[in-house]
């Protein structure tokens, strides 16, 4: 869930149907966001294709790679094919790559017209332009409320600002449907739900993955509504609208009154999640995208950089001590998942990574890589300047604790006993040894064991031997 398995690219490869994908490639903002969420080399391949007639021969494309870049080039081409952005075809007797026609058209349009300027036809009055700090605080408040609800299971979910007068989304339902929370079986209370294994992994993931995890579930909810005929718009249009929020720098303020009905509903829900901030001014309601919206469309890299710059608060020492300068209940709750809390001061969390705390987190399905990545991503600026950010003794030990859990390996094997004669037994042992498959032997009891996969070979050998010995 943490490394790239969530996000826009994962969503369009696994989350939507080919027909919806076709529709998505006609949406300008979606096209740009898809471009940005690809690895650098894949982006440059698309850029090279964008100004061609649409087809380039496979031979030409393979000459693009340098001496040490062939592997990377092949991987990038494969990824583009998986996304249906590039297709292999035959044209005039030679193999060619063809770029998706409408994707190319949108990309060209974006390049020629400068897409990243949107409906800033009407600018809000000065009074309706919030301070950057207010925007950031609102985004943090709404998102942390969601995470806190996820951790606590009870408490309040983030609420939509009342001035939008729209039905709010059922946060609890959303989280349960995403598999992050499950209904608590023991208490049987209607409103109670507990965090699941995936929920814990979700907490440790970076902001980009978290956002996409929630938005993905939200979009599939929209789709279900649309197929029920209960309103709801086209999925591709909804995705385009969401990505549009984050893609326009500076001049991306929207006037609530000018949006369509479907967009109004989505906008209200995004206000609830903290992606938009509504501000009243000049008799109108203006919607300002926050940092979260930019992270959603930013393709993962920008998002991580933002997170590293703003939220660094963790210092890990080589004696397994963890200091976290934070006042946020969510951040403390996340740390408590795998760090034993020693002292909790108003602005400081002091804890220790112990064997017990780490193994309990491993038991929740969190991997050692995720723990170390979390500590690294949220490192305090002063700790982030060190190399390595997380002392290698700590990172290695967490990995060792994980390996300890998998010290025993189970393989199915076949045990042979009750041999009819000593000779048959010795022959079978010899044969097993020749196969390199002798796992166990006991001469006294005339028993031997081989891996289950080699049972067939052993059986034919034994049958032949028995026939030869006349048994």
């Amino acid at each position: 869930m943490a490394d790239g398995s969530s996000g826009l690219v994962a969503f369009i490869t696994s989350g939507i149907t080919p027909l919806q994908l076709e529709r998505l490639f006609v949406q300008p903002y979606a096209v740009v966001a898809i471009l940005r969420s690809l690895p650098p080399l894949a982006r440059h391949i698309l850029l090279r294709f964008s100004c061609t007639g649409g087809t380039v021969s496979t031979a030409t494309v393979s000459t693009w790679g340098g001496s040490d870049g062939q592997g990377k080039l092949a991987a990038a081409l494969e990824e583009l094919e998986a996304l249906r952005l590039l297709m292999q075809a035959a044209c005039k007797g030679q193999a060619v790559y063809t770029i998706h026609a409408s994707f190319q058209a949108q990309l060209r349009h974006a390049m020629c017209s400068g897409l990243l300027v949107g409906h800033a036809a009407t600018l809000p009055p000065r009074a309706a332009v919030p301070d950057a700090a207010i925007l950031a605080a609102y985004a943090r408040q709404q998102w942390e409320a969601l995470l806190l609800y996820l951790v606590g299971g009870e408490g309040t979910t983030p609420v939509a600002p009342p001035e939008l007068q729209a039905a709010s989304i059922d946060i609890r339902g959303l989280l349960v449907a995403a598999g992050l929370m499950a209904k608590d079986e023991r208490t049987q209370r209607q409103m109670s739900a507990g965090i699941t294994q995936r929920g814990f992994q979700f907490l440790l993931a970076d902001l980009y993955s978290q956002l996409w995890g929630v938005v993905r579930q939200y979009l599939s909810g929209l789709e279900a509504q649309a197929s029920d005929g209960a309103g709801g718009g086209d999925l591709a249009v909804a995705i385009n609208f969401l990505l549009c929020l984050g893609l326009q720098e500076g001049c991306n303020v929207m006037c609530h009154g000018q949006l369509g009905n479907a967009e109004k509903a989505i906008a209200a829900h995004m206000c609830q999640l903290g992606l938009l901030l509504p501000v009243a001014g000049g008799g109108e309601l203006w919607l300002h995208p926050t940092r979260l919206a930019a992270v959603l469309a930013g393709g993962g890299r920008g998002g991580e950089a933002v997170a590293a710059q703003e939220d660094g608060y963790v210092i890990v020492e080589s004696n397994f001590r963890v200091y976290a300068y934070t006042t946020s209940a969510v951040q403390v709750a996340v740390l408590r998942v795998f760090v034993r809390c020693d002292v909790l001061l108003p602005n400081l969390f002091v804890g220790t990574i112990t064997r017990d705390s780490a193994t309990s987190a491993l038991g929740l399905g969190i991997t050692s890589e995720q723990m170390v990545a979390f500590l690294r991503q949220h490192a305090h600026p002063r700790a982030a300047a060190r190399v390595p950010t997380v002392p290698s003794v700590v990172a290695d030990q967490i990995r060792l604790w994980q390996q300890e859990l998998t010290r025993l390996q189970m393989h199915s094997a076949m045990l042979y006993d009750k041999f009819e004669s000593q000779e048959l037994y010795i022959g079978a042992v010899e044969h097993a040894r020749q196969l390199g498959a002798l796992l166990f032997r006991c001469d006294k009891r005339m028993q031997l064991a081989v891996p289950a996969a080699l049972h067939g070979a052993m059986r034919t050998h034994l049958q032949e031997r028995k026939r030869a010995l006349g048994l």
Partner: protein
Amino acid sequence: MAEFADDSSLLAILLDVSPSAVVHLASTPGLSLQTLLEQLLIFVNAFSLLNDGNRLAVFTAGPSGCQLAYCSSSCLPPAAAAEAAAERGTAPSAEVLKGLWQAIAGTAAAEKAGGGTFAGTSCQFSSALSRMLCFINSLQCRAAAAAAGAELSGGAGPSGGASAAVRKQQPMRLLCLTAAPDVPSQYIAVMNSIFSAQRSGVLIDACQLGVGDSSFLQQAAHLTGGIYLKPDKPQALLQYLNSVFSLDASTRQYLRLPGNTRVDFRASCFCHKRQIDLGFVCSACLSIFCEQLPACLTCGTDFQGGQGKK
């Protein structure tokens, strides 16, 4: 996440708008100042599409000096950026175009005022180069100061800090689009700029549209690890820009790109600013002269007795 390492960069483009360059562009089939600008603007858009962290600055260089035509709002000081964001509302390409036309008109006006003295003259390449390096340096200083300030005002963590300097810098590139021939008299200044670019880790890419190769640009690209390209088909400039010059430094290692096949390393002499194949070098300060002198013109070392090393 190595695959998704941040590949954003800061790109400063230098466009040569000197009269000789404009005249040359007009005489190139399929290319004129107009089409050059169109292709450049598409490249500017493509560059900002690639990564939301990409930052851009466009400079023009003429015989009267170098001007900033456009820069991304993230390149401005915070106060000015807020103001610009409030006033702006057009595409970056439109802003670039506006700035470029202003600069070109300014050059033409200066030419007229100067009674046509600029006709046939090249741009002030050395001053443009140093202006751009100063611009990049000021951005870096501001970023470092902001990082240090954020740490101080953060307050929660332990005080003191050397971490700001350690934070990874955004890779920086210069792209020179020139069509005017080299001016040997600028040799020393240009080389000094190139060395300072090399030292501050700025890549210099060059696209030479004029007649013949540019020794300055070849050396600049060679020394800083950039790419020097003299397009075979200048009318297809956009394709060169998109497929070669849009690449960031880290992605370049995976692709096969036009290399600096033959670099003209010839120096200009310090005495007459002539480009020379063979010359005399001062044994003390390494100044280059085209003829044997009794004493070094730069440091005054006495060469009497034929001690000037050939």
